[in-house]
């Protein structure tokens, strides 16, 4: 007897709306590590090109150049443990492939992939495949060869993958709580990296006053801008020459350039308030207070204040500390779960006598 079956029962309930701390944790770190890898790739790429442009530089200058990059990275101690000299080869090795460096491109991509795997059912297939392919690319020995023969292409690969990943995230990830953690992590990381890019220049001590404004100096400041992909934007804004204080001003205070510290912290603040449910004028949580304070500084201070009252380096260090604090607070409050590797202890027993 013919019978018309009912339509297939649609998905009975909407997706559960609660977000597990562990899931938020993984999304947050996945996003931060990809951003970190991308920034590092760009930084190394630009500085390679810089040195290629100036073949005639003496060893001392080259050495100082790489030293400054190390100093601003915050990983100098780890480098010194494993390497003797800071030169193009050793520093690039350290930042690109060294697994002992938890902040190397390889380590970052590995960590991003591990975190993505934990939340694989939350992210789209394309997002996962992109991270996975980047990991496989770095894992393959041909990657090291590529870096040696055509560094530009090597770094371009990494930047492309990272951008693809972030683009896929923007177009395939639902705008829910998970999205907030991803964006929060990305902008927090980006803000931190911008301070370090700027800080590189601080560490380069020019041998004499005559060098200020010279070809080398200008090229180095250009490199700073290029490391933040900011050269064209800067030129559109300032048009004329590359002046150090203007570069610093642009990268710290611009409210329209998406990598400037101000812009990133504004985004951080916005997502943080959504994550923590902060909707009153006076923040309730420590993280929101710290974020608001940092944002207020970036909205009201001028470059003169920074250079004269704080000093550029101190200002950047303070910003890094504030960003660290904000990140830690939010992790503790919303993303905390016990490390599964921590073993439980058994209560000791006493013999019966």
């Amino acid at each position, binding site marked *: 007897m*013919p019978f018309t079956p009912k339509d297939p029962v649609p*998905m*009975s309930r909407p997706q559960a709306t609660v977000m*597990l*701390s*562990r899931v*938020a944790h993984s999304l947050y770190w996945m996003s931060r590590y990809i951003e970190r890898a991308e920034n590092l790739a760009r930084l190394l790429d630009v500085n390679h090109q810089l040195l290629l442009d100036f073949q005639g530089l003496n060893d001392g200058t080259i050495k100082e150049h790489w030293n400054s990059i190390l100093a601003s990275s915050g990983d100098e101690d780890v480098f010194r443990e494993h390497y003797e000299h800071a030169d193009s080869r050793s520093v690039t090795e350290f930042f690109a492939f060294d697994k002992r460096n938890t902040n190397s491109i390889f380590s970052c991509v590995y960590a991003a992939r591990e975190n993505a795997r934990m939340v694989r059912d939350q992210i789209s297939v394309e997002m996962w495949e992109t991270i996975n392919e980047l990991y496989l690319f770095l894992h393959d020995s041909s990657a090291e060869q590529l870096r040696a023969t055509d560094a530009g292409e090597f770094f371009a690969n990494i930047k492309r993958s990272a951008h693809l990943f972030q683009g896929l995230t923007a177009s395939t990830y639902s705008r829910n709580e998970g999205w907030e953690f991803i964006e929060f992590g990305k902008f927090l990381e980006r803000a931190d990296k911008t301070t370090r890019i700027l800080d590189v220049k601080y560490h380069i001590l020019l041998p004499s006053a005559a060098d200020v404004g010279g070809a080398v100096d200008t090229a180095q400041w250009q490199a700073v801008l290029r490391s933040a992909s900011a050269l064209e934007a800067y030129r559109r804004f300032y048009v004329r020459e590359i002046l150090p204080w203007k570069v610093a001003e642009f990268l710290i205070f611009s409210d329209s350039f998406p990598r400037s510290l101000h812009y990133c912290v504004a985004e951080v603040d916005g997502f943080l308030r959504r994550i923590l449910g902060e909707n009153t004028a006076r923040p309730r949580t420590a993280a929101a207070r710290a974020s608001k304070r940092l944002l207020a500084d970036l909205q009201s201070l001028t470059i003169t204040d920074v250079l004269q009252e704080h000093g550029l380096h101190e200002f950047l260090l303070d910003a890094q500390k504030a960003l660290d604090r904000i990140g830690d607070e939010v992790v503790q409050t919303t993303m905390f*779960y016990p490390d599964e590797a921590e073993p439980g202890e058994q209560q000791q027993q006493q013999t019966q006598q």
Partner: protein
Amino acid sequence: MKPYLASVLLTLARLKTLPVSILSSTYDSGEFFDEMFAPGGAVRPHYGRLAERLGTLPEAEFHQRRAAVDLAFLRRGVTFTVYHDSEGTERIFPFDLIPRVIPNAEWQRIKAGLVQRITALNLFLDDIYHGQKALKDRIVPAALILGAKHFRREFMNFTVPRGIYVHICGTDLIRDHHGNYLVLEDNLRCPSGASYMIENRAAMRRAFPNLFASYGVRPVEGYAEALLKALLHLAPDHRERPNVVLLTPGVFNSAYFEHCFLARQMGIPIVEGRDLVVKDARVFMRTTAGLEPVDVIYRRIDDDFLDPTVFRADSMLGVSGVVNAYRAGNVALANSIGTGVADDKVIYAYVPRLIKYYLGQEAILPNVNTYLASEETDRKFILENIAKLVVKSANEAGGYGMLIGPASTKEECEKFRAQVAANPRNFIAQDPIMLSRSPTWCDGRLEGRHIDLRPYILYGEKITVTPGGLTRVALRKGSLVVNSSQGGGSKDTWVLQGDD
């Protein structure tokens, strides 16, 4: 063109468009009960429409549909993971397009038998963990229960919500060479495969939409809804919106796909042990908004790994304190603890007796005739005739710890005999059943392959049996092993509204 040439060309052209059907006349049912063909080759009435359709379906098109279904499974990630060493490979559970069809009258009997069985097993569990009358009345030897691997002393005297111990059961059924349905085993701990049942149905709808519509097949898509209802039934009455979660061991578990699938279908969170915390005998979930109370846990973690303070202390998958939260009545677990004592392969032999004892009824679905190595006369028989028997270890799953005597070498039989002699309580034996076969697409033609059936029974406010279930098929020629990890595949199971 010359006329005769034209007619030759025309004939050739016609021959090319003549469909070559996959139903070959050389299909051999052998001595086994064949699901589709009666002895003599006639198609059984409830397979009539299917045979018709297959008869007119060109082979090329059949291949196309197969390929489309396989691709869909791949894309949707309907996989299970097989672990060798620490590397896991994800595999698609092979799916055969020829469905297994069950007429309504047959199904009603199966359903009645399953409902009867789970009712009795539930009463048995309640008894074992309270008064133990069945032991005192010597229905089951006390030593077998007390020595059972999955008898959980820690669970004694527990009060469980609604008095239900087994909320989700997967009972494996086979058919002998007369076509009688027999119970092969019950799975009362963490039975899996329901997700494949649902995915297989979706695949068949896509592959044979018209055939499916014309047949009147009872739906299985309500499974997730029914499961959620059964879980909600366990929540305390005063909770307006009970929080139900699925507890998984994580990505490295072979059934992880199913865990995610079911959680999504039910719209409940999927959590791991470290996402839960027990405070003051209450269970909470760690969320970005703080600690959320949990009322019901659908746990897909075995008892051993559930709670390191009560069971295995080295388990990193469990939740410390969850057993005591359960004991305090603050959370419900599905299935409850200790249900493994009732799906122990040795206790299995006593189930018909338990049905008699608790319900006063004869078992509607009989057991396979079983010999118990723990009983002296049976043990002698087993040791002497091991090469002719199927011998199973009481507590292994997935087809491991099993010897199929007639298909094994002398050495394998000797090895097993020694194990049985050393630890008789741990072994049972059965006469090999000539399992029924179903036409299955194998290497370019339809051949009979052995199958079993795992229907899913949900025990909530009412006992519901999802019409159909997972038909597993042993893909290797002559093989009787249907498990996914050992070369098995599956088919869709169609329970009809009527009888044809």
